[in-house]
């Protein structure tokens, strides 16, 4: 294991010093067989138990297990979302947050006085209140058909939350983070074993295609994808 690690580091160092990606062509095949080096620790940083139940149910519904991938929680999409909300992005680190606040028109983009973490938190609470009112149970306890109906209504902007939060803006961030959790580099906690990348055939972070572009034109490109942790 440690030898492998040294090997990868040496390779990277030479690729950087060489300054040309041609060095990456010599990537040893066994590196490709390595799985994620660092699986994130279990448990949640940001999500409360109620929120975690919501998110786990949501990602397993949107990403069911099938011949392509395991289900959303087995891909770590829930973990990805928790880490994203706990981190700088969730705290609004690149968001202009000065008032005054006005709803504006959709063409003017995001105008809520909420950082993403607070939007998520309040959106989950509002969705659960809506579910209890409509179906008698919170989101994680309603049946699959009702879950599907609710998500479609959220996606279509047909749900009106009590308290004034926009259900459409909430679902926008939900959808974005589920997709990120499935397709971002596994180093962020989702896309476990690069299953999202394998599902579509994305080749990951090492791409040296000057010859491949000709050799594999209109042909299937072989090989397993590599993530950041595989070559760090």
């Amino acid at each position, binding site marked *: 294991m440690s030898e492998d690690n040294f090997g990868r580091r040496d390779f990277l160092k030479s690729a950087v010093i060489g300054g040309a990606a041609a060095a990456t062509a010599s990537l040893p095949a066994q590196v490709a067989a390595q799985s994620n080096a660092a699986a994130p620790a279990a448990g949640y940083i940001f999500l409360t138990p109620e929120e975690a139940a919501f998110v786990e149910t949501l990602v397993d519904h*949107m990403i069911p297990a099938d011949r392509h991938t395991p289900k959303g929680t087995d891909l770590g999409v829930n973990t990805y979302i928790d880490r994203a909300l706990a981190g700088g992005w969730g705290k609004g680190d690149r968001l202009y947050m*000065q008032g005054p606040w006005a709803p504006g028109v959709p063409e003017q*983009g995001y105008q809520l006085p909420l950082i993403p973490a607070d939007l998520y938190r309040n959106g989950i609470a509002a969705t659960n209140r809506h579910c209890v009112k409509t179906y008698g149970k919170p989101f994680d306890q309603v049946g699959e058909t009702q879950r599907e109906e609710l998500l479609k209504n959220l996606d279509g902007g047909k749900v009106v939350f009590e308290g004034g939060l926009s259900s459409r803006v909430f679902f926008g961030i939900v959808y974005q983070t589920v997709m990120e959790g499935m397709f971002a580099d596994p180093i962020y906690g989702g896309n476990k074993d690069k299953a999202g990348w394998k599902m579509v055939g*994305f080749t990951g972070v090492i791409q040296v295609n000057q010859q*491949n572009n000709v050799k594999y034109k209109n042909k299937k490109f072989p090989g397993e994808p590599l993530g950041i942790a595989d070559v760090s």
Partner: protein
Amino acid sequence: MTTKLKEVDVLLVGLGWTGGILAKELTEAGHQVVALERGAMRSTENDFAVPRIRDDLRYASRNDLMQNPAKDTLTIRNNPSQLALPMRRLGSFLPGEGVGGAGVHWNGVTWRWTDNELKVRSLYEERYGKNYIPADMTIQDWGVTYAELEPYYEKFERTAAVSGKAGNLRGVIQKGGNPFEGPRANEYALPPLESSHASDLFNVAATNLGHHPFPCPTANASRAYTNPDGSKFGACQYCGFCERFGCEANAKGSPHITVIPIAMKNPNFELRTHAWVTKVLKDSTGKRVTGVTYTNVLNGEEFEQPARLVVLCAYAINNVHLMLLSGIGKPYDPIAQTGVIGKNYCYQTGASATLFFEGNYFNPFMGTGGLNARTDDFHSNWNFDRSKFGYVGGATLGAGMTNGRPIAYRPVPAGTPRWGKAWKDATAKWYNSAMNINASGSVMANRYNYYDLDPTYRNAFGLPLMRMTFDYKENEHKMGRHIAGVINEIAKSMNPTSLNPASARSGSWSVVPYQSTHNTGGTIMGTNPGNSAVNKFCQSWDCHNLFIMGASVFPHNSAYNPTGPVGALAYRAADTLKNVYLKNPAPLVSA
């Protein structure tokens, strides 16, 4: 408490492509140059090394190399009667920050804008009559011609390792190139990139329908290259992490691997990073600038840096903002139609179709910034009769592969569910079997598209944000309808398994989805101080020792990407400064 520093010969605001070109050229001519860059230092070794740079989430979704709107942004509205609201997160366009600027994370597409653009008003009036141009379309001749820019286009192309195929060498049309380009003295620096499967299919279909496709000219080095200054490039690896990323192979024409390191070695040059310029200062006559004030963003300390010559080299939007904050030149008023600063803000438009071909492998991850076949039949082709469609300008069309990064790139046929098993099936099935045909369209200047200072919102320095008022006008809608039709005609002729057709844009411009970082205008060039902020040498009409670089000097926007003329105008300004202005500082064009 502002610390006043010692006067310098030349002060550059921003160190991207234009600042880098001027820093190299002017220090080599013996001038003392200081560059103030509001962002950090950047190098391939430290910032763009694999695997760290190949992080789709960090760089493409979270815009890590871009300006941070929490510190400074714009307010946005579609028309003057709306309340402008802040662009709270980046979306439609992505201005760069840091040494190298957008030159590190652009795609590399490099065009030579022709006299169709540079003489736009005279040519359209001559061919179609004065009444053809709508009354509110404030287009104007630039005051500079293709013939004047030609040697500087070439200089920039050679510096930036532009790969392509000439279509017009000294007036003789060349097979395989763009037959509608302006005459070139010489071939491109490098031969074109290897074509992708998507481009191959497009080439056949477009040719069969009478169009003239050619490989897109682009600063992605098709092979290892040493430029005339001795800067070394690796060959492009078609890695699919080009736009929004720095290039780990040094294969993308970027200032941080070319002009900037050369300037940095010159003892006449000094770079101060984290130096955020807040104002350009004028003397009591208002006819000369005396320097700038800036804030060291590492500790908040304020400085005055006096200079004999100031050149604005920031991103196009920031150059205009600085002019408005500094009170140089008269702000544009769309109602009275007086003033020039902020006038003629332009953007770009487009349309695209997605084609699905069962059993084909497009390998979208084997892409690069300019890996594209394009046609210019409805843009630089002056023989194309616009009067049938009633618009000014045009669009280039093309197909290629820039990337297959799956957070954003997952094409599926229209009507596919957005999650669940059917979504997964379609996503898995079509990811590698889809391609796009897209159009990039011009935007003509309009009286009501402009910048001014926002009355309400402020940035991290307590200064007013700039307000952008912009929407597409009927001219662009007419072009969109025509071009979407052309795209769909080509697409249908290719007989795809499934087609998401192109549709013409009909609604207002939105700040939300990414569209293009080709923002132009605001400090436009022209023939006299009544219609422009700068003359044909990019020299301020108001203060002759102030020059403005970049696309803010474009009086309108073409379908082409802006970097070709941005680079050419910078090299031309460098020559003018070295050979004329700095020997005898005075207005270069009499007002």
